[in-house]
């Protein structure tokens, strides 16, 4: 019997339940209640965010498929397209870090090859609590270690290179780590597949792993705050099998080539439920399945359990009637189970039977696309932290001491120990892997061109101003791509926020989405898909609002413009100029985080017009082959960016003199955007390009052997042996000793 308690347990509101009754014209069965509860969960239905997501620009001349499919599709020319998307696996990764992260990778990979594209790159954006916290450090280290091992386990075995990402530490992620995984695949334009059922009478075929009781209500778990009981939800986390996924990849791509497949979708969140009703809804048809035929790993599973299981490595496909054998033959070759479990019908309904008796019958469109839509209150202004507060910078700033300290700081230190656990080279397309250049670069052998990819998000910025922070994330991604000479063309986003039922959190979400929309419009990088992860709260403590952007750029296949200086005696040009910053906008910097141990004010000011010109200029500089190295100024400011340019194997440093009257520590460490350091042997040609774009590009110094020296109008602020900077940067990675 369905009573009020059961409805609450399914996280449905009374009005949502009434809507279910109205759709069905009767009370739902227990199985139907479960089906509605997962499809209408925040995770699957985007009921709090959908209204605002519509503001995002999604069209562009290269966009073949925008949001609404398993992944966005973008035309890269020469008859090829790419499929890419970013997705979160935050909640499972907190409960069970290794499997949570592993299945996060598995889920997004399936989204890519479901579209017919072979995955060729993964990047991940990670957030954890601080490792040095006396109270939670041990747990945070365990979560970090587990997440990294899980990503490595899955990606390495599957055979996709993990080519980059970011990893940031803040106390707000203590009980809510963020694990956002980006994946990208490539295929010929005519080989794209869609998750659409068609053709009444066509067989519905189940492929891959058997269904077990794992992951039941995973989607609902991801739609609630964490409480003390959450840790009891380990059974809601699935277990990944990357080898099986690899078989599924090869078999699916091969089966698609037979021409016998009509539509295909992976079983991710909400498993069999989601894949059946969404494929039916997209195709405007019905789907009928018989649960007795569903391959099962356990005995005695109820219809409710089978429909809600989130067992991994499963796919659902619709084939042409009469050509099933062509499909079965391929799956048999790869040792996979493929079973006809039902058929496409003409009545628009999802009909589920068990031993021939109907256990659920729900109209597909209402279930998949007419989930409740909420315009949640977002009237409260986002909190601005001490915007007008009197700033307390250390009285005697020391650039000399602060730079090594910043290079060793958790966010800025080398993450080599992490990415060295990832196979970042398999498929031999990695032109620039982790920490080599500002963006990861993978080539496409088939087209002779390359893709640059950047992930970025800065929770501190978005916390202080969601709109400005979101715009900065878009700008930073595009700048990273431009720095390596790529033209940004399309984006995906992962929106990690707290509880949307709190107006101040909802305000953060709305402001951030609008900020992304403005910037993506401006930089001509439409959003082709993404993911929203809400309820990132533990015991009422929310995370910083953390939108993570993933942007892809196109470029020719050439030797990469890397971060490190290569030769002594070159000019160091700061394209975009020194920029300005006041103490209010300095409050969001890494310097204030690590040296002053504080956070205040606003994020750095972004002039989007200037940013666009700087990016255009640097792309032209890169394309003309004038940049021996290039690196944008971001977290940690100019001094940190300069130091990072000095950490290459060539042992080349720099001597720079900055003509500015800013306070020394602000000059050295402010994070004003629209600035890119370029080393060149042809400063006149670089200056001419900058001038043509109306961009300041002062020569700030020269490259020298083995030292970095930073002066301000002739007065030395700091001078370091590169070996010391290297040691600081590398030494910060030893997380176990902290």
């Amino acid at each position, binding site marked *: 019997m369905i009573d009020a308690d059961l409805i609450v347990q399914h996280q449905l509101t009374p009005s949502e339940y009434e809507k279910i009754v109205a759709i069905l014209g009767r009370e739902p069965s227990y199985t139907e209640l479960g089906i509605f509860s997962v499809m209408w969960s925040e995770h699957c239905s985007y009921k709090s965010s959908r209204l605002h997501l519509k503001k995002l620009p999604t069209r562009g001349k290269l966009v073949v498929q925008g949001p609404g499919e398993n992944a966005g599709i973008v035309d890269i020319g020469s008859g090829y397209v790419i499929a890419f998307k970013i997705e979160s696996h935050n909640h499972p990764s907190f409960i069970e870090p290794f499997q949570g992260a592993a299945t996060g990778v598995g889920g997004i990979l399936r989204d890519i090859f479901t579209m017919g594209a072979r995955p060729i790159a993964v990047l991940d954006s990670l957030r954890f609590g601080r490792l040095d916290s006396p109270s939670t450090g041990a747990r945070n280290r365990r979560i970090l270690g587990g997440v990294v*091992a899980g990503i490595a386990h899955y990606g390495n*075995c599957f055979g996709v290179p993990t080519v980059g990402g970011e990893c940031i530490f803040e106390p707000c992620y203590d009980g809510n780590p963020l694990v956002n995984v980006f994946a990208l695949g490539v295929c010929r334009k005519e080989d794209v597949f869609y998750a659409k059922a068609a053709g009444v009478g066509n067989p519905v075929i189940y492929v891959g792993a058997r269904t077990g009781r794992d992951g039941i209500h995973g989607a609902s778990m991801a739609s609630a705050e964490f409480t003390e009981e959450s840790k009891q939800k380990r059974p809601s986390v699935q277990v990944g099998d990357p080898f099986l996924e*690899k078989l599924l990849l090869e078999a699916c791509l091969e089966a698609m080539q037979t021409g016998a497949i009509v539509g295909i979708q992976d079983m991710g969140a909400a498993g069999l439920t989601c894949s059946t009703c969404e494929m039916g809804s997209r195709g405007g048809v019905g789907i009928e399945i018989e649960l007795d035929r569903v391959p099962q790993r356990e005995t005695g599973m109820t219809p409710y359990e089978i429909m809600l299981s989130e067992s991994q490595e499963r796919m659902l496909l619709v084939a042409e009637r009469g050509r099933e054998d062509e499909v079965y033959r391929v799956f048999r070759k790869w040792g996979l189970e493929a079973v006809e479990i039902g058929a496409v019908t003409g009545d628009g309904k999802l009909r589920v039977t068990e031993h021939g008796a109907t256990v659920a019958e729900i109209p597909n469109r209402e279930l998949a696309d007419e989930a409740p839509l909420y315009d949640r209150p977002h009237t409260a202004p986002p909190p601005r932290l001490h915007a007008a507060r009197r700033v307390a910078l250390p009285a005697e700033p020391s650039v000399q001491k602060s730079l090594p300290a910043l290079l060793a700081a958790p966010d800025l230190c080398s993450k080599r120990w992490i990415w060295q656990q990832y*196979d970042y*080279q*398999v*498929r031999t397309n990695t032109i620039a892997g982790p920490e080599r250049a500002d963006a990861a670069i993978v080539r496409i052998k088939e087209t002779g061109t390359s893709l640059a990819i950047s992930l970025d998000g800065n929770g501190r910025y978005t916390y202080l101003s969601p709109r400005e922070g979101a715009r900065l994330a878009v700008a930073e991604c595009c700048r990273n791509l431009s720095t390596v000479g790529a033209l940004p063309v399309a984006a995906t986003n992962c929106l990690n926020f707290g509880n949307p039922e709190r107006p101040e959190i909802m305000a953060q979400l709305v402001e951030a989405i609008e900020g992304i929309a403005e910037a993506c419009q401006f930089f001509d990088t439409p959003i082709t898909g993404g993911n929203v992860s809400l309820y990132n709260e533990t015991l009422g403590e929310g995370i910083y609002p953390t939108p993570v952007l993933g942007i892809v750029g196109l470029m020719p296949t050439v030797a990469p413009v890397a971060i490190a200086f290569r030769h002594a005696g070159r000019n160091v040009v700061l394209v975009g100029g020194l920029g300005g910053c006041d103490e209010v906008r300095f409050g969001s910097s890494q310097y204030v985080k690590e040296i002053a141990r504080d956070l205040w004010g606003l994020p750095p000011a972004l002039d989007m017009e200037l940013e666009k010109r700087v990016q255009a200029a640097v792309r032209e500089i890169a394309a003309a082959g004038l940049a021996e190295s290039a690196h944008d100024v971001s977290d940690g400011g100019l001094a940190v960016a300069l130091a990072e340019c000095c950490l290459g194997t060539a042992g080349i440093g720099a001597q720079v003199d900055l003509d500015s009257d800013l306070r020394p520590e602000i000059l050295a460490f402010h994070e004003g955007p629209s600035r890119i350091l370029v080393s060149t042997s042809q400063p006149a040609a670089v200056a001419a390009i900058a001038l043509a774009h109306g961009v300041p590009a002062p020569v700030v110094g020269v490259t020298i052997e083995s030292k970095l020296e930073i002066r301000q109008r002739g007065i030395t602020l700091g001078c370091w042996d590169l070996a010391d900077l290297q040691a600081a940067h590398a030494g910060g990675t030893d997380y176990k000793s902290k």
Partner: protein
Amino acid sequence: MRFGVIVFPGSNCDHDAYYAVGHNLAQPVQYVWHDEASLGNLDAVILPGGFAYGDYLRCGAIAKFSPVMNAVKKFAVEGGLVLGVCNGFQILVEAGLLPGALIRNRGLKFICREVTLRVETSNSPFTCAAERGRHLRMPIAHGEGCYYADDRALDELEAEDRIAFRYVDNPNGSLRDIAGVLNRERNVMGMMPHPERATEPLMGSSDGLAVFQSILRAGRAVAA
């Protein structure tokens, strides 16, 4: 020369080996599926990297039972050239075509990075185009690449000049810094580093070509 690349269901460096041979070495190359009983008309066969059957047990422990491994053994006995890279090396060891074992890395973690190898012998079809002592840069990417054998076996390898490569900066704890070994007949070699990932400048190094060019030179010498 006709090359074959064995494809186990979980091989994931098969495309890379194929590309290195077909594109960068410009030699005819074909895939050989794991349930083939015969290798056909090949001159050299490569067992590529990956996770042959998932490797949830010991790496290569299941692969040694696959039908194609009987064919590989027969091919080796008949003098065909067999190169195992990474997972391929692990499989050759499990199948008994090469001595020793590959166990968990010393640091217990998967490691992907470039290493420097020293060529220890040029007296093999896999190293004849490189002089002894030459340094080669190429990547490793493995979790279980620590070469292990008992002292007697190691002494024997050294005495018989069957150590093909040593690490200059041992990344995984391999005994006596061993990165690659030969069988007694010198026509089978296994190595943990990936020569196919270092076959053109855009990959960061072309040093891996030395291995493939050696095979080519050896093959041509046989033909002539």
